[in-house]
């Protein structure tokens, strides 16, 4: 496939390979980057949304993620998969955001004002049924990194090998983390 850049939207093909995206970026950084975003923005958005829960927060983190991708795309190591690289950035940005939010919650006098559990129950953007709401509440109680591991495996169905690349953690540690998360969630569901 010979690629030339003609317009911002012409090559918004959702099935481009990493090499094709990089070739487009070399030809025209902005145009190629649009192709990259088109390819990855939805899975990345959903990964971040499951991490931070609320759309407005996810929107901020998604933007920060792709800003980092844009600024660092030249440093991308072609030996790894582009999607694991972007997921890694997205996960780190999500964890950074969650740490900041945790600090705000800790400092707040009235913690309920910020309680995600309460906000989730009345969130008009949440489409889940009662059982899914319980599951989301259980996930909210997990430590942040464990939450990332659980979401990546359970929802995104990512292999431990790719997850290991994303999170820079051994496969064994990821399996243990996922197992612990599953046990905690199962216990929470049983108690409801």
């Amino acid at each position, binding site marked *: 496939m010979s690629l030339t850049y003609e317009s911002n939207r012409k090559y918004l093909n959702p099935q481009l390979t990493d090499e094709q995206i990089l070739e487009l970026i070399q030809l025209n950084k*902005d145009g190629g980057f649009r192709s990259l975003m088109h390819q990855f923005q939805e899975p990345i958005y959903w990964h971040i949304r499951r991490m931070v829960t609320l759309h407005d927060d996810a929107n901020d983190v998604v*933007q920060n993620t792709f800003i980092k991708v844009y600024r660092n795309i030249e440093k991308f190591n072609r030996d790894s998969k582009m999607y694991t690289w972007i997921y890694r950035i997205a996960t780190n940005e999500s964890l950074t955001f969650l740490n900041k939010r945790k600090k705000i919650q800790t400092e707040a006098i009235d913690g309920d004002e910020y309680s995600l559990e309460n906000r989730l129950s009345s969130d008009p953007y949440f489409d889940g049924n009662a059982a899914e709401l319980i599951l989301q509440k259980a996930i909210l109680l997990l430590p942040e990194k464990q939450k990332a591991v659980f979401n990546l495996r*359970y929802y995104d169905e990512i292999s431990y090998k790719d997850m290991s690349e994303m999170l820079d953690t051994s496969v064994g540690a990821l399996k243990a983390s996922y197992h612990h998360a*599953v046990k905690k969630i199962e216990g929470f569901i049983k108690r409801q």
Partner: protein
Amino acid sequence: MRKDIREELENIAPNLLEIGNQNPYRVPAMYFENLEIALGDESKKLKQSIPSNYFENLADQVFIKAKNKNRTRIISLNAKRWAAAASIAILCVASYITMNTNDITIDNQSFVLDVELEEAFDYLADQDDLYTLEVLEWSEDEFFEETEEEFYDEDIDYLLDEVTLDDLDELL
């Protein structure tokens, strides 16, 4: 759900397995595929999940911010607090290094950090020991207030580039 993931859950989490792994935040079916032409009924459903044209405009928003000459993360400080802030940065990153020596490469002449100040702070925020909590409180309460001067990520990077291992030894 994929077979191997299902098998992982069968014995240890039957209730979780029963709920399934569909995305509760999902948008209407085929929304993303048809975003550019999504109108009518689908757009009404869309408003309940994600602002209209969200994905269409996301790239433009990122471009504007990514190309902004001023970096997005700015810490405002007055001139007198520059040196203090740099010291805090060094302290924080030094603490980070000592706790993550496997992750960061240090050579004899200078240390090269692939870690941002913010990440160091975030790392420290996860720590429970008194020392790191004190560093955090000190940095946030005393110095990182809104004042006249702007202090960029690059400035911290520059200061850190100037730091030698001997400097670190003195601080630790």
